[in-house]
């Protein structure tokens, strides 16, 4: 359904994506795990049309995706960006309205968002900047759903959230997927991202090094030692040092 072929992208001399190819199948959750600086966010920004890859193709529904953010949204792909990027100066409801900019009748979407996230309904007139981190993440997800996307790209949704809230976020993603939205999830929080994923791949230094079902990846020895095990943090730090 959504296919990347040999994507390359570099920031100046730093090669962030080094020939990435994978496919997300319709209706599934695909998780991409990898350390800081492995190129996960760059990949998401390329798919969302915010960055133009230097080479390679991104094909969705048999047609290449345009390299501009608003056209990608028009094709039915929405990004919930890393760090959430809600509009702090707008109210909760206005944030949702922004998410549904291309949708004619936004009332249905807003109603659905408030059913899904009751708290957002209670705070609809409040400025989004005053919400807590977890609430902001929920708003960012709800906003992403406002354009009725067929594919939702989620970039580090658990970043900076308390563990209990992370569980909420992960359950929400699972719920959204069960309603028929294909999800491409990028996470540092590998264990939780793999639990709900149908397929997963591991990205290291701009390359996909492993692709399998979520369960298989979670059982993979090298993945366990790098991202899941007790020593994961240490190894992660080593990778970070290597990258630096």
């Amino acid at each position, binding site marked *: 359904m959504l296919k990347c072929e040999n994507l390359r992208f570099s920031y100046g001399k730093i090669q962030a994506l080094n020939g990435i190819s994978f496919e997300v199948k319709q209706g599934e959750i695909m998780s991409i795990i990898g350390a800081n600086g492995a190129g996960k966010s760059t990949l998401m920004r390329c798919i969302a*049309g915010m960055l133009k890859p230097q080479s390679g193709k991104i094909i969705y529904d048999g047609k290449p995706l345009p390299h501009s953010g*608003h056209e990608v*949204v028009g094709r039915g792909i*929405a990004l919930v960006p890393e760090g959430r990027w809600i*509009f702090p100066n707008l109210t909760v409801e206005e944030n949702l309205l*922004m998410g549904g900019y291309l949708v004619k009748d936004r009332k249905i979407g807003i109603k659905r968002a408030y059913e899904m996230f009751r708290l957002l309904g209670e705070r609809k007139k409040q400025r989004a900047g005053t919400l807590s981190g977890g609430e902001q993440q929920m708003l960012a997800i709800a906003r992403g759903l406002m354009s009725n996307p067929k594919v939702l790209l989620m970039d580090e949704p658990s970043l900076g959230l308390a563990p209990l809230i992370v569980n909420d976020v992960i359950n929400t993603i699972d719920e959204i997927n069960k309603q028929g939205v294909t999800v491409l999830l990028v996470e540092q929080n590998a264990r939780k991202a793999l639990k709900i994923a149908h397929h997963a791949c591991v990205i290291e230094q701009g390359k996909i090094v492993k692709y399998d079902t979520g369960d298989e990846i979670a059982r993979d020895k090298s993945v366990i030692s790098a991202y899941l095990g007790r020593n994961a943090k240490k190894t992660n730090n080593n990778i970070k040092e290597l990258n630096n």
Partner: protein
Amino acid sequence: MFIQQFVNGISVGSVYALMAVGYALIYSLLNFTNFAHGISVTIGAFAAFFFLTYAMQNLLSGIIMGVIAAALLAAFIQLVAYRPLLKRNSKRIFLMIIGLGVSVIGDNLIIIAFSGRFRIFPVNFSSESIKIFGANIGVVDIIIFVVSMIALLIVELIIRKTRLGLAIRGASFSLDTTSLMGVNTYKLILTIFLIAGSLAGIAGALLGAKYTTYPSLGTFYTNKAFICAVFGGLGSLPGAMIGALILGVSESMISAYVSTGLRDLFSYFILIVILLVRPSGLMGKSSENKA
């Protein structure tokens, strides 16, 4: 005397507000000061002048012609000068420098095209006056105030109540995120220039009606409007309006009670003081990459 000067100040201030809001709109989205704003004002004044001279003597129609000419010019400048730089994601300071260049080119082209002389609108609006509370109030001042306020109210309604306005408010926080919502940001920026240009056109036509029309009209008055926008806080629309009214009235009072010669000196002095003491102005937004 005082009421007369106050009304005069409010009228000048409301024209400053038209131009300052144009600065603020563009600044709020793009974080740079559009120094090519002045030629839109000048073209607005000339368009109104020629319309009134050669077509029909109706100020309102003249203003509309001014609006069309100025808005088209602003859009043209955006497309030709700014968009290529925006597409390359250039530093904001380069956009500002391009704007200065466009402004100098524009001023000189206008002198070549229309000569440098001063032109008076064929209908002398500034001579008529009515008596209110024993003070002679110029009809032109009332027209200026009413037209400016209506224009600013329309812009405010667009920003508060429409889908376009929501996108503008969102984009003033982040253009990138706004594009992720499905907004074509290049189109949005073009629309902003059309709105700012329209306001500049009204300002030009009104200035032409109150004073005279000449090639450096836009540059002279937009410099004042820039001071108002900085005073109110760059990027803030209410700030720009309040700053404009305050500066208009203070200028008027200074030229009446102190000296006409000191008026402009005072304005620029204010600019320097604000930049030294409170660069973010009355209600400005702050960000790093701005010019």
